């Protein structure tokens, strides 16, 4: 009895602990340095006994910032320059960290001190080409308006990127193309472009023999690496914040360049690189190829099945409704059609404020995409039934619901199934983008592969995705054969 009471008391005493025992969620952006910093934070926290998860390469700045503000993640690595130039308004371009801390406080967001390095933008050229043209400073570029630039898409758009620097240095180059950052090194190495934007910690700078041009007019702001976190963690997970603060000042530029090089050029895993830096040894690993494949397949199939299931449950009734009432039909098909035109990346980003990150928001986005083919085909299948057959059913004296169930829906089976099949195949493809908001699946190795320029990794995601699409197609063709009433197949043959 006493023992039982003790147990109950112990459990009760542990309840508050359980209440905030949910793991701390760390996010990272879609480039190697951010992923390494995320891994450092995770391992460091785990070493301090805090349960932390790392949702890697969630996407660009806007996704991470939005996810942090809406509590979908608890912390992520950021740069002060991004805060002053992009994320915060009414802040001096050279604001220091204490000033930023004051600005972030009302948003419920905290900021650590600098991690020890600044990762600023820079412009780089091939060493021998720069030497040949006598270019060592950015202002030297003004004398060569014929040069071709290849800038990352983000750099092209940011006010502190190309538009700003062009103005500051009076650059007149007109051949400026947007490129993926990881591809731009190859472009400059092969001579396809003359200059690209760089991050000062990029591992490729020595590898490709690039010259970093001197920012002689001090245009680029400092991009001190920091962690942003939700302020409520100071109460709910003080141990995590303490661990995070211990990282501050410990990572200098050369360490960061070295870690970037180990991952991007040395092919090491981010977790191993981070563990080596923290001098801890990792136990186990993330399993073999088959285990990874199995896990991603499970994630991918879950996404497709969830979204498709919801779309079938809602889409068929909406299709029936549209077929019955013309006005409602035009509205429903119009709205689902517009949903279809929203770019998938934008759709995933829209879901973050509503549903956070992970499987559910991804499934919700895919669900919205699946609606149109299902609604449209249900509508078309019902509308295409010859009038005299619909009237024959009515003339028998069957009520509308029975007519729908026994005559109209069976006759529309083929069209409806074709709609579901289309939705499923589209979903298998689109779900590869769901990795951007932390839903995993086959998109994960594709993202990592693009980031690390590793074809093998890209194929590890792309091949199973293609196989799955074919399987889904085959499966639905079988289902179609099985579910289509024999009489309709005979009729079609005539």
């Amino acid at each position, binding site marked *: 009895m006493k023992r039982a009471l003790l147990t109950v008391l112990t459990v009760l005493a542990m309840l508050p602990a359980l209440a905030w025992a949910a793991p701390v969620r760390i996010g990272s952006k879609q480039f190697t340095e951010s992923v390494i910093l995320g891994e450092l934070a995770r391992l460091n926290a785990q070493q301090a006994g805090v349960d932390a998860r790392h949702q890697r390469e969630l996407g660009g700045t806007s996704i991470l910032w939005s996810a942090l503000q809406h509590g979908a993640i608890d912390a992520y690595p950021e740069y002060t320059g991004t805060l002053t130039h992009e994320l915060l308004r009414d802040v001096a371009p050279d604001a220091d960290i204490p000033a930023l801390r004051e600005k972030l406080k009302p948003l419920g967001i905290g900021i650590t001190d600098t991690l020890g390095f600044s990762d600023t933008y820079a412009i780089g050229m091939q060493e021998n080409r720069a030497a040949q043209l006598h270019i060592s400073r950015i202002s030297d570029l003004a004398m060569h308006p014929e040069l071709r630039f290849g800038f990352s898409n983000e750099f092209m758009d940011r006010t502190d990127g190309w538009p700003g620097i062009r103005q500051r240095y009076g650059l007149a180059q007109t051949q400026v193309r947007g490129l993926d950052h990881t591809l731009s090194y190859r472009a400059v190495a092969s001579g396809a472009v003359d200059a690209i934007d760089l991050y000062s910690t990029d591992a490729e700078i020595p590898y490709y023999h690039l010259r970093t041009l001197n920012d002689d007019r001090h245009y680029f702001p400092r991009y001190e690496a920091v962690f942003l976190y939700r302020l409520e963690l100071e109460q709910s997970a003080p141990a995590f914040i303490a661990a995070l603060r211990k990282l501050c000042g410990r990572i200098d530029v050369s360490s960061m360049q070295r870690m970037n090089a180990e991952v991007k050029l040395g092919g090491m895993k981010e977790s191993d690189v981070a563990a080596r830096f923290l001098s801890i040894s990792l136990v186990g690993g993330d399993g073999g190829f088959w285990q990874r494949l199995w896990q991603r397949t499970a994630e991918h199939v879950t996404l497709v099945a969830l979204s498709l299931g919801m779309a079938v449950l809602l889409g068929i009734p909406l299709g029936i409704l549209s077929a019955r009432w013309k006005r409602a039909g035009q509205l429903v098909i119009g709205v689902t059609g517009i949903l279809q035109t929203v770019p998938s990346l934008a759709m995933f980003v829209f879901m973050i404020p509503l549903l956070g990150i992970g499987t559910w928001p991804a499934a919700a986005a895919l669900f919205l995409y699946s609606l149109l083919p299902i609604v449209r085909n249900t509508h078309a299948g019902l509308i295409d039934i010859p009038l005299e*057959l619909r009237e024959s059913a009515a003339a028998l004296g069957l009520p509308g619901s029975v007519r729908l169930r026994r*005559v109209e829906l069976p006759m529309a089976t083929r069209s409806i199934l074709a709609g579901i099949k289309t939705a499923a195949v589209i979903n298998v493809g689109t779900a590869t983008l769901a990795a951007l908001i932390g839903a995993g699946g086959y998109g994960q190795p594709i993202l990592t592969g693009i980031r690390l320029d590793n074809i093998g990794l890209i194929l590890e995601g792309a091949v199973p995705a293609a196989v799955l699409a074919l399987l889904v197609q085959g499966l639905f063709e079988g289902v179609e054969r099985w579910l289509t009433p024999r009489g309709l197949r005979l009729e079609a043959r005539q």
Partner: protein
Amino acid sequence: MFGADSARPIAFALERVSKRYGSVVALAEVSLSFAVGSTTALIGSSGAGKSTVLRLLLGLDWPDQGVVRTGGEILQRAHVLELRRRVGYVIQEGGLFPHLTVLGNLALLPRYMGWTTAQVHARAQELAELTHLSRDVLERYPAELSGGQRQRVALMRGLMLNPDALLLDEPLGALDPLVRHELQDELKRIFDQLGKTVIVVTHDLAEAAWFAERLVLFRDGKVLQDGRLVDFCERPADEFVTRFVKAQRYLPEASA
């Protein structure tokens, strides 16, 4: 004339009914009544309004003006399902549901009404005998039937609940002459055998006269003449009736 035959109760009646589809006048102030157990043929060119009569009697369409009566009561939307179950309806192509077998087509309404499978089977066998449909056809799909078989099945489907009346809209219109001739005989026999109220729509005067003693000729949404064939020939209501009667073509003398 026939409409005024007060000896028998009235099964269906139109009272000053008008109906238009957009700008097309289908019926203009038509009054007609059909006695219980009578057989009537509605004739006329296509678009003359004869099919509209059947659609109004079944509540598939509603009059713009005037009333439709069934069994003396004014037809109301709330009672239209019960009415339809007491009336068999057969259309030109049969209107069979392609995803169901013959038996499935026949069973649709009875199963909804709560019949057992055994009852449905027994009734189907009975009607197969009546319509001279071979029993192995019951398991086939509409796509596997000949045109004549389809019309027999359509008739069976209309008769499953043993309705009071049969409305047939060009039931033999899509058949070749031999099958058509054979089915004209069969239908005539079945109408006589069952003694139900029958209204047949056809544009063929000879077929109409073969089925029914009473013919109703429509033109442009109006009843031009209502009577027996002999009246049409000897006392035509106007010039058009004579032209319609004379439009029948007879076989030329075979030249030896």
